[in-house]
């Protein structure tokens, strides 16, 4: 069975129960990773409400560093200023996307346009995170890690490819 199907109502997911459970678990782990990063920021309520006041330095964790890259290369000052103004909002949107995926997993109806966008972005964020854990850094890297994690990484790629195919 293909993981996604296009019907007159829109795109519906057709995941097996254990697949949904794995995806929800991964999305929850992603949220935890992102929220831990957000919690590192010095809390200034006003700044937080505006989505600014984020950290000046990129994350040390390679997965977070890939999810939240510098906007400038070779210009640390500009990258740092930009990060302080934008990182918290970016984190918040990524968390929101992962939550939307979890919610839609328990809803048998067709994905809304917003949910569809969240799915595409969250599948990408999950793959980026796993790739960092598997030390996949160049096009030739096949990944270093246990078979289960490699299997999940490939499966997420299959899901993403299928979803693109369905919406094209």
């Amino acid at each position, binding site marked *: 069975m293909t993981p996604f199907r296009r019907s007159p109502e829109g795109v519906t997911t057709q995941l097996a129960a254990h697949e949904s459970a794995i995806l929800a678990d991964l999305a929850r782990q992603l949220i935890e990773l992102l929220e831990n990063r957000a919690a590192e920021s010095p809390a200034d309520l006003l700044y937080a409400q*505006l*989505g*600014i006041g984020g950290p000046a330095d990129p994350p040390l964790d390679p997965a977070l560093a*890939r*999810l*939240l*890259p*510098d*906007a*400038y*290369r070779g210009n640390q*000052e*500009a990258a740092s*200023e*930009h990060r302080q*103004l*934008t990182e918290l*909002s*970016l984190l918040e*949107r*990524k968390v929101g996307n992962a939550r939307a995926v979890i919610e839609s997993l328990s809803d048998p109806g067709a994905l809304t346009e917003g949910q569809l966008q969240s799915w*595409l*972005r969250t599948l*990408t*964020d999950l*793959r*980026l995170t796993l*790739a960092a854990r598997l030390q*996949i*850094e*160049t*096009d*030739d*890297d096949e990944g270093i890690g246990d078979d289960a994690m490699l299997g999940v990484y490939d499966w997420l*790629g299959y899901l*993403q*490819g299928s979803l*693109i*195919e369905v*919406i*094209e």
Partner: protein
Amino acid sequence: MSQTLDSPVADFELDEATSPDTPWITIVWNDPVNLQTYVSWVFRSYFGFSREKADRLMLLVHNEGRATVASGGREEMERHVESMHDFGLWATLAKDDS
């Protein structure tokens, strides 16, 4: 995608922004993770590129390691870069020195 606020970063570095004729560019870098079909879809759905242009830029990213996908004012390029990061693409902006 809603934008919470316009970044005032451009105001901070007048020394870099003294030449209004120098446009800024948005660069997308190759990564080993994102699917080619996804990158092409992002270019079409976000920038409104034709399939031909999106595929050409996607292949440029894949084969050359990078591609310039937009040029213009600094704030606009910052918004593009932020949107690319939303999509999980690796993007940066820079002054166009070409």
